[in-house]
């Protein structure tokens, strides 16, 4: 016959309810995997859009419809103001907005340093997303180009960004990453 021993079960439960600490590096791995998935999804959408735009199509137009379309286009071109002036292409060197994010749970201060601020730790301090929170962010407007950067934690600890390529031409002896803005 089964003899119930609730004290034993209680002891097991008490033991199992103790907090379990998971390696905080898991956060970085999760966010890195998400970043890779997002990048793949975005590039997948771009490829699909390009294929849709470049796919050849056949249209059936009656002679009368073709004449009417041609006449309409001619009228539009003739009526355009400043006819003959070439359209100004969009600014190729327009800065793009980038947000940099780092998880540093017990850091007192974090700075973003890189080629874009002459590696000056005072110029781009990162802000915690909430007071005492682990996530630090900084937003920069970067012109097209290739930039090396790193995160400087508490003024002494250098961190590269695992979600970005690491710089090979590292001449400082500290880890750094590379971000490429625009098509250059």
């Amino acid at each position: 016959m089964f003899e119930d021993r609730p004290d034993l079960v209680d002891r097991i439960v008490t033991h199992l309810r103790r907090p379990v600490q998971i390696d905080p590096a898991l956060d970085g791995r999760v966010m890195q995997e998400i970043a890779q998935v997002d990048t793949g999804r975005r590039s997948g959408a771009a490829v699909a859009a390009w294929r849709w735009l470049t796919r050849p199509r056949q249209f059936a137009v009656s002679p009368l419809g073709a004449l009417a379309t041609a006449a309409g286009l001619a009228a539009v071109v003739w009526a355009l103001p400043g006819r003959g002036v070439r359209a100004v292409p969009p600014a190729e060197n327009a800065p793009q907005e980038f947000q940099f994010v780092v998880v540093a749970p017990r850091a007192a201060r974090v700075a973003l340093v890189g080629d874009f601020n002459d590696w000056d730790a005072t110029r781009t301090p990162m802000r915690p997303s909430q007071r005492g929170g682990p996530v630090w962010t900084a937003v920069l407007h970067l012109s097209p180009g290739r930039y090396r950067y790193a995160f400087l934690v508490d003024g002494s600890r250098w961190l590269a960004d695992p979600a970005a390529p690491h710089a090979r031409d590292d001449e400082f002896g500290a880890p750094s990453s590379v971000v490429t803005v625009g098509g250059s």
Partner: protein
Amino acid sequence: MTAPSGDTRPPVERVTRPPDAGRSDGTAPSVGIPKVGTSDGELVRRVLAGDTGAYAMLVARYRDRLGRYAVHMLGDRQDAEEALQDAFVRAHRSLARCDDPERFGAWLYGILVNRCRTTGGRAARRARLFVRDDAALSGAPLPGPAERAEWDDTVRWALGQLAPEYREAFLLKHVEDLEYEEMAQLTGAGISALKMRVKRAREQLQIIFREAERV
């Protein structure tokens, strides 16, 4: 202001949209997670608006809490972290389908329970590759106290003896302190079946420990 410099975690993410500065205090219950600062709902809305960094805050908030269930359920820290990471990534991918962002934790819990089932099944198959003589194993003596010097090892070993569905029900009820209605939502099992599983798990644990004490 000083802080140890060796306790930082690696940088994680770069996105192209600044975070929303708005905050609100959470009030809705969410699987035992105390709400401090920005609510789950607010963070979920920020992630859906493109602020990927806000998701890192959700990951940090739920990592240890859900990790405890995964570690106990799978009995292996590496498997647990794998299931946990998988759950977080899948939750992010399906975040738009989270009907009640204030109960993100409960929703995430359901995903983790499923991932633990998958990972547990894979681990069991992996174990069978190494253990082929089931008959010999069934007659093998239980590990003695000398081999199980630590209570922690003993509990982990005993949990591992339970059938996965019993272990799952026991952990959700007694360790994670869920109501049977919540357990039914998470597991898809009926309430009466869950009650039976918890009862059997309690009985089997006691039998396992009693047998171990005799050795």
